[in-house]
């Protein structure tokens, strides 16, 4: 008697588990496209490269270009700015990593690790806190305490190497992959 009940239970259990599993697969198959439709389409994913003519940028000046829909800073640093970026003790930085797409992920945040040519700093214009575009500091209009950028949204202060020095931003401004095509032209991406 016990065997009969157990047998019946086993068959029902099998059907129950099998239909439950098929149901779960069906729910997943329906949910996946509904979730995935929100991710960037192939058109948005297609990596674009951007060329920048840097011949007109004067020392101490920066231009903002649009790269993959986001701002990118190209800054021609003065010797004083390079100097101030290089004499910083890396161990004292809030974020000790270079955040350079062209370097190893564990590379330390020395200024040398964040530039190709010392005069030219190319960094993302997206504050690593909540995505605002930080304001550039110039001798005429200083921004922040470190001569780099100050994000007015929540007060993140970046130095002349684009490294976070104080404020809520967790990371240094990202350095994208870029290369010098000539002395007056760079290609980003």
């Amino acid at each position, binding site marked *: 008697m016990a065997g009969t009940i157990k047998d019946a239970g086993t068959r029902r259990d099998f059907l129950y588990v099998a239909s439950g599993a098929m149901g779960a697969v069906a729910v997943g198959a329906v949910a996946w496209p509904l979730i995935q439709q929100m991710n*960037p389409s192939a058109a948005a994913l297609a990596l674009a490269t951007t060329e920048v003519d840097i011949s007109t940028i004067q020392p101490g000046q920066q231009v903002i270009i649009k790269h993959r829909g986001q701002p990118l800073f190209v800054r021609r640093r003065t010797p004083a700015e390079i100097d101030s970026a290089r004499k910083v003790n890396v161990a004292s930085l809030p974020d000790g990593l270079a955040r350079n797409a062209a370097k190893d992920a564990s590379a330390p945040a020395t200024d040398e690790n964040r530039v190709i040519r010392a005069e030219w700093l190319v960094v993302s214009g997206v504050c690593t806190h*909540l995505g605002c575009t930080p304001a550039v500091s110039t001798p005429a209009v200083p921004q922040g305490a470190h001569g780099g950028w100050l994000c007015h949204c929540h007060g993140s202060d970046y130095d002349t190497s684009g490294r976070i020095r104080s404020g809520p931003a967790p990371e240094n401004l990202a350095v994208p992959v870029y290369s010098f095509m000539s002395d007056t032209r760079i290609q980003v991406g």
Partner: protein
Amino acid sequence: MSGPSTYDPKSGFAKWLDQRLPLPRLMHDTMVTFPTPRNLNFWYTFGGILTFCLAVQIVTGIVLAMHYVANAELAFASVEKIMRDVNYGWLIRYVHANGASMFFLAVYIHMFRGIYYGSYKAPREVIWILGVLIYLLMTATAFFGYVLPWGQMSFWGATVITNLFSAIPVIGPGIATWLWGDFAVGDPTLNRFFSLHYLLPFIIAGVVGLHIWALHVPGNNNPLGIDVKSPQDTVPFHPYYTVKDAFYLVLFIIFFACFVFFEPEFFNAPENNIPADPLVTPAHIVPEWYLLPFYAMLRSVPDKLLGVLVMGAAIISLAVLPWTDTSRVRSCRFRPTMKWFFWFFVAACLILGYCGAQPVDATLFGIPLVWVARLATLYYFAFIYPIMFFVGLFETPKPLPASIAQSVLGEKPAAAE
């Protein structure tokens, strides 16, 4: 409290319908004969006002959607077209835009009233939690709506808020990209926000239905915070409270209309009249006034993830009030200590709102506002957790009146106030 139904269908059709779909009976029992404490004051009229606000937002919103274009290239111009070309478009948009501010003003009064009179306490915890959920849905809806005109504040507000999710370790950046549909806020983001902005008000309406349903089980709390004990403590909802609600609703509409007709841009940031520019962040970005306290909390924490967590916890923590409050007495009228802490809480919220509106490095009398905001944030959480807990344990409440009727009719006035 909701006793046996007293609905008596008169006509043949009413009897026929009552046996098939007793909707008139439901309306009769909940909106006509429903026994309501006889001592509800002005502060209890905001529930009706909020229902009105939701209806106004839905009706004007449906009309605006007939003219608005959810496309990054066309959105700003379509809003201008609503303002200039569409017949009465200016009126409908100003009612909708100011209506959002009125909605939040009313909901904040409604929430503070609930805290003051202890309306969140047993047996009304579920009403309160549903209310917190409605408030969360309201903030989401308001945020999506604010993005739609696609001005500078719309764009950068959307950027900052969606970036909050990137603070989550490991999966955060993926979530942000998933929300955007791109690598930054853009056209796909605008489209989905429009879709959700249209959807959420109907979800709110559904949760409001549950909120009212849950309210009709134990019935209204009241300014004395004591239970209804006999029929003498109540009056029928109609005409007593329909008339009272209607009177204050009219006053509220006059207040509302003053903004719509005389200061329609009062709550609007001038910056939002500039079309969205992904390369230029405005020097001073602020959310709408009703989100400023939470924005101040976010800014007062110097760590990205912690800042986001504190901001989220500020809203979620409201839901646990029924359990952090240990007092057996509901109304602050009889809680001499808690009454003070309550008004400090209101002040902390206002101070946070003020700090949130100022530039990040602003000072007041030489004190950096970020420290003021930190203190106020600390008090906000202290109020919900330790203060609610310990004051409830150690406070000696004033004697409660024997009944609502006795207190109202002045027989042996046990209630001093």
